[in-house]
């Protein structure tokens, strides 16, 4: 009865153990999650955004819960390129999942420099270009909203990425996401990931102050899923289906059923973000759940789910 299902996927030329990633900024440097699950069943692992120099990030409070979601304004806190190479690469080397480094910066040159340096590291499979972070004053989301800018930064970083996979992470907060996706593809993106968080705000009515020290933050979690599904489906239909570029779908995934929604909408792989905080073993449960779904529905290869929406 149990049909053998192939849950490995080809993602922009990488052979991955499963279509499930953990999302940037929600999975530490893997050692934290290793306490809870076998992280080698993950298809991919994406680091917190890395910048050229260390960044302290924003003052506290940095997080607040909202209805079925949360806001974060971490502010790209990270240890910087040098320390990342020294301290974290040795940890990541031990993982069998494809390691993507999420790269951020304030200027194109910064993105290029970080990417070029990390492209030399054999432990790294690819990059996720973060041009969509809403929580920094300069850079971040500003790069992600202008098609010409997106194309240029993608081209430059692509050169620096050498033979590594370059994935561009799109912001959802634009009038037409397909235009931006098209620009990233034209710039040479090997894959697209969507979505990053939605800019949002929470107010403490008793103090009459924003809850977050940074005032605004990025909304993530189940609340955003229906919007993320729509955007993935739109980009799939209008941009990537014809070009064959894979999409990493994310935004509000809680469980296998949500992950499958993203794949049916057009994603080749999915990433778990906020839910890692709630169920730190959930990413692996999703791997199993997707396999189970394929079996039950007569798919022998998980990639058959991609875009299988009627």
């Amino acid at each position, binding site marked *: 009865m149990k049909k053998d299902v192939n849950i490995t996927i080809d993602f922009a030329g990488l052979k991955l153990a499963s279509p499930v990633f953990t999302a940037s900024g*929600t999975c530490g440097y893997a050692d*934290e999650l290793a*306490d809870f699950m076998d992280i080698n069943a993950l298809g991919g692992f994406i680091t917190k955004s890395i910048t050229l120099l260390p960044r302290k*990030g924003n003052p*506290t409070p*940095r*997080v607040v*819960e909202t209805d*079925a979601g949360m806001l974060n304004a971490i502010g790209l806190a990270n240890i910087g390129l040098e320390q990342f190479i020294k301290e974290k690469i040795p940890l990541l080397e031990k993982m069998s999942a494809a390691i993507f480094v999420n790269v951020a910066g304030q200027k194109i040159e910064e993105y290029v420099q970080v990417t070029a340096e990390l492209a030399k590291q054999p432990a790294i499979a690819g990059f996720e270009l973060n041009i969509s972070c809403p929580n920094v004053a300069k850079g971040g989301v500003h790069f992600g909203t202008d098609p010409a800018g997106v194309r240029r930064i993608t081209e430059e970083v692509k050169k620096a990425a050498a033979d590594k996979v370059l994935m561009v992470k799109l912001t959802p907060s634009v009038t037409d996401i397909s235009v931006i996706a098209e620009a990233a593809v034209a710039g040479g993106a090997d894959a697209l990931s969507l979505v990053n968080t939605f800019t949002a705000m929470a107010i403490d009515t008793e103090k009459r102050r924003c809850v977050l020290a940074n005032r605004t933050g990025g909304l993530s979690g189940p609340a955003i899923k229906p919007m993320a599904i729509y955007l993935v489906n739109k980009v799939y239909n209008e941009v990537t289906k014809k070009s064959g570029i894979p999409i990493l779908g994310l935004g509000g995934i809680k469980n296998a059923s949500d992950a499958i929604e993203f794949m049916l909408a057009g994603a080749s792989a999915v990433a778990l973000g906020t839910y890692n905080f709630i169920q*730190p073993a959930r990413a692996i449960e999703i791997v199993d759940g997707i396999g189970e779904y394929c079996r039950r529905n007569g798919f022998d290869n998980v990639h058959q789910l991609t875009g299988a929406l009627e």
Partner: protein
Amino acid sequence: MKKDLVQRKKGVFAARIISNHQFKGRFCRMSLELAGLGAEAFETVTPGQFAEFDLTCASLPSPEDVPVELRDAIERKILLRRPFSFSDVRIEDGRAIIDVLYAVVGAATVRMAGLKPGDEISVLGPLGNGFTIPVKKKLAILLAGGMGAPPIQHLAKVLAAGFKNIEVVTFAGAKSSDDMPFAVSDKNTAIGPAEFPDYGLEMLIATDDGSTGYKGLVTECFRQWLQTCEHKADDTIVFCCGPEAMLASAAKLCEAEGIECQVSMERRMACGTGLCQGCAVECGTGNSGQSVYQMCCKDGPVFDSKEVIFDL
């Protein structure tokens, strides 16, 4: 013994409610029981560690049964776990029993208060680093402010049980008698919460309004007491948990007196496990004048008070 180590690591465990009741104003006590791997994981908890409870499954009371000021707040559809430290952890018949002392303040704790014996919740833990007890000290001073009481109670018990050579003095403060998260003797003096006398420890109480014990801040009460104290600064250690302003003032006092001081910090947490970087505590880096953010959940919640740059 490799297996042993693996089994004792933190994890996600089902815990069964043994008892849960509101005992005074908005304050409640809950006891939880963990079996199997959960029991093993919690066997070695130190005071100041905590766990993240998933309260999303708990029912919501009728609006009429909720304090007016919380009625809007509880309509939020909660998502994240909530961090709680322990007022006691013990092993009975191979099961870990966890006591939690908590205040009903919002969407999750209102749900928590409705849990009934027999109900199950998911507990993620144990997490963070608790208080470190240096064996060669002769005097331990415990400072609890408001809802900072639980880990201090836990610590008091551990000290009383295992460190007979360390003298312990406890200070507990709150805005007023009603805000003390434990019963207070009707003599209106420095006779403390139910648990503390059990451990045979000295206890002083301070309230801002003088409704019980010393009238004034608990740190001021402590400062005055310290002037009469005969122990050497080197032989003394202070452990604090409470509002950040109180921790800051205790830290300042201890620094001035040359007393070692450990503070248990509180931050809004999304994960409790070091994944999100949400719970930043600003810490100095020696004399450089630079600061870094450490994570309350993973590097703390207990910090050496000299490291912390308090957020006031």
